[in-house]
C-alpha cells in the first residue's frame, strides 16, 4: 500500500547561507560552518532562538565526532533534535530529507542543516586525499592503493566500453561547468577551459585527468528548513520540498550490482513519485559532480536521457542554458568548490536561488521545479530531493 503521508509541500527551505569558499586560510571547519549558519539565519530574517534542530555532516579537518553538537555549542544553541550524518557525498541530500521528515513528524519545528570543512588549507593535500581514501574498506580495498577517484574511474571505463562514451564527451561536462562558474561570484575556478585543455591535463586515475576531477576547497553552506505553516513568516520566498528519495545498493565497489547503472534510479524514482513529477518537469538541476563521468551516468539514471546516451546529450548542449536540463549553474564541485562532505550543500543553495529567481545573469528562465541529486562512496549512497516554488503545490 502506498504511504500517503509524504513530505510533499509540508516543509520549506526558508534560509540559505554560504561562507567564503575556495581558498579560505585561517578558518576552522566550525568557524566556516557558523559563518554560513548565521548568514542563513540573516537571509531568513530569523533569530537563532527559533532553531530547535541541527543536522550536519562531519569535517575531515575537525576532530569533533559529533559535529552537529559542537556546532550548536559554538553558536550557543541547545537543540532538541540533532545528528551528525555520514553517508559520504550523499550526506547533503540525506540531511535535507531527514530534516524534512523530522519537521513533518513533530520531532523538530525548524532545523539548521549545515556543513563546512577546510580540506584545502586546513590539511595538506596528502592528508586530504588520504582522509578521503580512508573511507574505503581497510581489508578488501585500501591495501591495493585505491584512491577515491579509482572507484568512479572504474565505472567510467565500463561506460566507455559498453556505450562508446568518449573522453571528449566527459570533458564537455568540465567545460560546461567552468562556463557556469565564470558567471558565479565566489567561484574557485573561473578561467574558461576547452576540451583540449581537459585532455591535455595530467592523468590522475585513468580515464580521469586532472580537469575531470573535482577541486579541493575550503568552505561551508547552510540551509534552514521549517514547516509549511511557518514558511511565509520569514523574509524570503519559501522553496518547498516536493519529494525525497534515497538508495543504498552496496558498500564495496566489487559488490556494485552493475557498474553503469546506479541506485540513483531507485532514489530518483521515489523522489519523483512523492513529488508527482517526471524528469520532464524539472527546470534546473544540481547533480553531484565529483568527476565528469559521474554526471553522465546520473543524467541517465535520473531519467534526463536514455541509458548510454549521456555523452551525445552533453555534447548537444543539453546541460546548459537553452538545453533540456541546465545543471550546476554555479559551476559545481568541478569549478565552484569542493570542500568534501559540504560540497553538495552548494548544489542546494544554488537550486534554491534559481527557484527564488535570484540568480541574475545566470538565472534559468521561469525555473519552478528543481532537483538536487547527491551521491557518494563509489555510487554506494544516493539521495534525491525535488524542490519547488509555492506555485507548484
Amino acid at each position, binding site marked *: 500500500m502506498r504511504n500517503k503521508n509524504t513530505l510533499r509541500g509540508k516543509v520549506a527551505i526558508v534560509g540559505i547561507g554560504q561562507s567564503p569558499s575556495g581558498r579560505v586560510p585561517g578558518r576552522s571547519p566550525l568557524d566556516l560552518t557558523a559563518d554560513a549558519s548565521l548568514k542563513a539565519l540573516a537571509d531568513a530574517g530569523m533569530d537563532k532562538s527559533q532553531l530547535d534542530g541541527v543536522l550536519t555532516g562531519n569535517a*575531515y579537518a575537525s576532530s569533533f565526532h559529533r559535529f552537529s553538537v559542537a556546532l550548536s555549542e559554538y553558536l550557543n544553541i541547545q537543540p532538541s533534535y540533532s545528528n551528525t550524518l555520514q553517508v559520504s557525498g550523499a550526506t547533503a541530500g540525506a540531511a535535507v530529507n531527514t530534516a524534512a521528515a523530522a519537521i513533518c513528524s513533530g520531532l523538530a519545528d525548524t532545523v539548521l542543516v549545515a556543513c563546512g570543512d577546510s580540506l584545502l588549507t586546513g590539511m595538506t593535500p596528502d*592528508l586530504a586525499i588520504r582522509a578521503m581514501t580512508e573511507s574505503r574498506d581497510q*581489508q578488501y580495498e585500501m*591495501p*591495493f592503493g585505491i584512491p577515491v577517484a*579509482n572507484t568512479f574511474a572504474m565505472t567510467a*571505463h565500463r561506460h566507455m*566500453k559498453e556505450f562508446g562514451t568518449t573522453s571528449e564527451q566527459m570533458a564537455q561536462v568540465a567545460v560546461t561547468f567552468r562556463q557556469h562558474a565564470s558567471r558565479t561570484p565566489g567561484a574557485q575556478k573561473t578561467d574558461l577551459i576547452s576540451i583540449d585543455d581537459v585532455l591535455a591535463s595530467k592523468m*590522475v586515475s585513468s580515464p580521469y585527468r586532472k580537469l575531470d576531477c573535482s577541486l579541493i576547497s575550503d568552505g561551508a553552506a547552510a540551509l534552514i528548513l521549517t514547516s509549511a505553516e511557518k514558511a511565509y513568516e520569514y523574509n524570503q520566498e519559501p522553496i518547498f520540498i516536493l519529494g525525497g528519495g534515497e538508495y543504498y545498493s552496496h558498500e564495496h565497489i566489487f559488490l556494485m550490482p552493475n557498474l553503469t547503472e546506479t541506485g540513483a534510479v531507485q532514489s530518483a524514482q521515489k523522489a519523483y513519485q512523492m513529488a508527482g513529477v517526471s524528469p520532464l518537469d524539472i527546470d534546473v538541476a544540481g547533480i553531484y559532480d565529483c568527476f565528469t563521468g559521474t554526471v553522465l551516468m546520473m543524467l541517465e539514471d535520473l531519467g534526463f536521457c536514455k541509458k548510454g546516451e549521456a555523452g551525445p546529450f552533453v555534447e548537444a548542449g543539453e546541460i546548459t542554458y537553452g538545453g533540456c536540463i541546465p545543471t550546476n549553474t554555479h559551476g559545481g564541485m568541478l569549478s565552484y568548490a569542493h570542500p568534501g562532505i559540504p560540497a553538495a550543500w552548494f548544489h542546494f543553495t544554488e537550486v534554491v536561488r534559481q527557484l527564488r529567481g535570484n540568480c541574475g545573469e545566470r538565472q534559468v528562465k521561469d525555473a519552478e521545479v528543481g532537483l538536487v541529486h547527491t551521491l557518494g562512496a563509489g555510487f554506494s549512497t544516493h539521495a534525491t530531493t525535488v524542490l519547488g516554488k509555492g506555485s507548484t503545490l
Partner: protein
Amino acid sequence: MKQLTEEDTIQKPLPIADSDSHAMWEGLKKGELLLQHCEDCGHVQYYQQGLCRICQSKKLVHRAASGRGIIHSYSVVHRSPGPAFRDDVPYAVLLVELEEGPRMISSLLGKDFTHLAIDSPVAMKTMKISEQVFLPCFELVNLADK
C-alpha cells in the same frame, strides 16, 4: 573524526583480519584465495562473512578459488593517494571477476599496461607484504602461451 597525521600517510594501509576474515588471510599465506560456498543455496561469495549474503545460512564452507578471472574494469593510478604509494605509481587497480562468480578489488603485477583491457584474462598470484600479510594480486594471462 580521527585526525590523521603525516605519519599515517607514509604507512601503507594493511588489512587487519577480524573473526569473519581470519581464515581468508591465513589461506593467502599458503597461496590460496578462499571463497565461501553456501551449502544451502550454492552461492559463492567474496568477502568473508558469518552468513550467506543470499539466504543468510550459516552453513558456509571455504574452498580455494581457481585463481582465474577476467578484468571487469580497471583504472591506472598516476596520482598516488599520498606518500605511501608514491614510489608505486603508475599502478593498475583491477576489478576482477573470478571464474567462480564473485568480483574483487586487486592490483595488477607489473607495469606493462599495453594489454590491460576490460575482459582480459588474469591469473592470481600472492604477493608477500610481511610475514602476516599476503595480498592476492593478478597478472595478465598471455593468450599466446595457452
